[in-house]
């Protein structure tokens, strides 16, 4: 019986579609790329209702230990010593844009007194809407 000679196929990985895949990935990352103005690490409270936060909103973040950072939505967040500085910061931002939205990014375990002082400062600065940043909770 004659056995057919085995054909040796070349060991080549097809790379013709690699460029397409690579550019698709680039486009995906370019579209989803956003510069995060506040990188404070906090454990966000979880809520079922979550509204989209407007881009370029100003940020006030409060860590578990009560450290407060502020950002006008354009520049990276910077720590402030106390809530009086939050008031002057918010008043300055509202002076430039009276309709500016603020985002409160606070740790879920922070004592409410820190949050209360910040909300009070924002109220005094005549901020109209604040967003309580949250993570998704299941019903």
């Amino acid at each position, binding site marked *: 019986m004659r056995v057919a000679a085995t054909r040796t196929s070349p060991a080549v990985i097809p*790379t013709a579609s*690699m*460029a397409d895949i*690579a*550019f698709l*990935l*680039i486009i995906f*990352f*370019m579209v*989803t*790329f*956003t510069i*995060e103005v506040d*990188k404070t690490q906090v454990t*966000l*409270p*979880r*809520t*079922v*209702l*979550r*509204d*989209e*936060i407007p881009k370029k909103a100003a940020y006030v973040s*409060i860590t578990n230990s009560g450290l407060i950072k502020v950002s006008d939505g354009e520049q990276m967040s910077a720590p402030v010593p106390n809530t009086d500085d939050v008031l002057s910061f918010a008043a300055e931002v509202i002076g430039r844009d009276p309709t500016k939205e603020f*985002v*409160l990014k*606070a*740790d*879920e*375990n*922070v*004592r*409410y*007194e*820190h*949050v*209360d*002082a910040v*909300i*009070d400062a*924002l*109220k*005094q600065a*005549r*901020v*109209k*809407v*604040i*967003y*309580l*940043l*949250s*993570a*998704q*909770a299941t019903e």
Partner: protein
Amino acid sequence: MKFVKKSVSDEIPTSSMADIAFLLIIYFMVTTTFAATRGLDFALPEEDDQPPVVEKEEAVLIQIQPGGDLLVDNKPMLITDVLDYLKPKLERNPKKPVIIRPDQAAPYGAMVRVYDELRRGAKRGVEVKNISIPTQREIDRFWY
């Protein structure tokens, strides 16, 4: 003198394209952060030296204890029971104010959970239109 004409290739060199593409991918992968960009909106009332007078007994008061437990109209209550408690009151008066008053030592997350629960009431037929979270300064000035 003999001129040698070099033939120039009319192809765009693409051998380094894959390197550039993957460098871009790695850059975007490293710098991309999937930030949380959602939250609960909370409209703040206009700062007013003469706030409208609301009769204290008209409002439902939800107090948040330092441990996160709730007292609704001075009665201990689970968060899941709050909407059932509010339902008959809001049927009588749809504009009935509900005041959330967290203790200064309470965790912020407890306040957000209560606010979320009240906001979600609309889907269950218990729409709370008038939610107020006074600050300590407002309580000191206007509470009676």
